């Protein structure tokens, strides 16, 4: 029974109950934990000790790449490859190069923001063990779930399960692999 288990999951009715339980889980020393909610809960980051993502730095790098790509392209086209001098303006006429370079900055950072977020989240993941719990379908509707994974160093089936049952959860489930 206990060897093909991905983790132990508890269901809660309100966000407050889950955040309180998450604090207790963290205080008990569990680290391989996760929470599931139908909308973003800011308090859970602190309660579970989730670190700030590196995503903003990636987006910044993406934006800089976009800017340099835009300016580089314009430089290559209008200075290096084929100069067309109109109205006595210099070949590298920076003010009129700003709009395309700016749009490229935005475009690249937007792509990194969306696909970087999905990539760091490990999505798409059509299968995940938590979906094996039938009631988990409510995680995208109204219920709140907390899980301790079996890979946690402190994990012990009987002990962890009784700990989870003591958190005031609605129900506690074994999540099968």
């Amino acid at each position, binding site marked *: 029974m206990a060897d093909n288990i991905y983790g132990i999951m508890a269901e809660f009715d*309100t*966000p*407050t109950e889950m*955040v309180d339980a998450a604090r207790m889980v963290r205080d008990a020393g569990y680290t391989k934990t*996760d*929470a*599931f*909610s*139908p*909308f*973003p*809960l800011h*308090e*859970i*980051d602190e309660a579970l000790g*989730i670190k700030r*993502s590196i*995503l*903003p730095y990636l*987006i910044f790098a993406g*934006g800089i790449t976009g800017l340099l790509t835009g300016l580089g392209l*314009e430089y290559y*086209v*209008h200075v290096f*490859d*084929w100069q*067309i001098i109109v109205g006595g*303006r210099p070949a590298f*006429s920076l003010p*009129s*190069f700003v*709009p*395309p370079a*700016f*749009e*490229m900055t*935005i*475009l690249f*950072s*937007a792509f990194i*923001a*969306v696909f*970087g*977020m*999905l990539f*760091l*989240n490990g*999505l*798409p*993941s*059509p299968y*995940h063990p*938590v*979906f094996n719990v039938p009631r*988990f*379908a409510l*995680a*995208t*509707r*109204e219920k709140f779930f907390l899980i301790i994974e079996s890979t946690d160093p402190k994990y012990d089936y009987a002990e962890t399960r009784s700990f989870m049952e003591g958190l005031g959860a609605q129900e506690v489930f074994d999540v099968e692999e």
Partner: protein
Amino acid sequence: MQDAKELKQKLHPAMVEGDHTFASVSDKIGDVTLKRRTPFHWFIGFGLAFLVAQLLLFTIIWLVTKGIGIWGTNQPVGWAFPIINFVWWIGIGHAGTLISAILLLLNQKWRTSINRFAEAMTLFAVACAGLYPVFHTGRPWLAYWLFPYPNTMGIWPQFRSPLMWDVFAVSTYATVSLLFWYIGLIPDLATLRDRAKNKFFKFVYSIFSWGWRGSARHWHRYELAYLILAGISTPLVLSVHSIVSFDFSVSQIPGWHATFFPPYFVAGAIYAGFAMVLLLAIPLRRLYNMRDLITDTHLIYMGKVMLATGLIVAYAYVMEAYFGWYSGSQYEWFMIKNRIWDGPYWFFYWLLILCNGLSIQLLWFKRFRESEIWLFILSIIVSIGMWLERFVIIVTSLQRDYLPSSWAMYSPSVFDITMFVGTLGFFFSLFYLFVRFVPVISIFEVRTLLPQANVHGRQQDFDESVLEVEYTYDRTDPPNS
């Protein structure tokens, strides 16, 4: 305490009315797509819109067959209906991004229940806008020449041209709007996936929700990405209409060559866009019984934004005339006279002032602001007015410029009109499909508006604890009786 509560209610009115729970909002919004029978009015509306969209198909086929000579566009009015309609549509799109991005950064909670369909409106409006320049090129199958790519002809686009900036701005805007709209949809599609009974729809929603499971770590990154997207969309949306205005202001035509065009155009875009959001929101909340989610407060706020942007636009009209006079340039002053009273199109100018400048003043009064019907009528008037604004700016500037021998009149051909009406049909067909297959209101964001979404529901706990103290006090006092 009663007063304090009333004041709070006045300052922060509830954005979700009625006794809703997480489950009830999910079902109410999700069931429009999943469970409820497609209502009869949907078939009527979609059928009509789709029929009208055929005009667009017909016009485009004829246009590609014969060439753009079938339009009324002539010399000197070489930019006519296509660019008028392009600017009109793209301006409408701007309200969607304003609602989803700028109001998010400003922490305006009322954006939450209108952002989804406003963003959809943006996408469809940009799709309609994009058709015009592509077909105005005359050979739309070569439209990819607009993009810089290494080619055997050895030519590059001219990056110093505002028309090139437009290509970058509009294509970036379309892409980023799509990404922004889609990333907002992912958690809601997961909700639909978990609730769908139909195998086929469950499969489709599974694919498009990428296996979203609402993990706290995912939400954390999701919110960061969403906030940063809002942050970069804000300068983007302002840049797009600024660049559209550069198409005009960088040229040297009197009436176009003005430094105040970017803010003038951006304000006008938001003005027209809010009118369109109201035109969509009012029937939507009526037909789908969503008055508890798109509340009267939402409509009043949108009315106020319309009033504010309308006043900016009216100020721009006054300044435009003043600049023409104050410039001391005989060409500028002639253009103003020609536009306002001396020329053949004076009627359209005054109709524009009536629609955009005067009618909007009604919104100063509570009676009009709080009436659904009046807001709807005013939105139609403003949409017409904003279309006239582009007509006046474009046609009256071009038809009589520096050289009197090249002056001419402009009137649209029947194909100009069918193409415009056709894009209206195309827009509404897309919108009807959106209403049918995608949740029209962001479900997960509406959940966060509910009082029970607050962890330790701060204000509420406070109020209850105050009540409790009073209650205890009553019971225990006097202590020794």
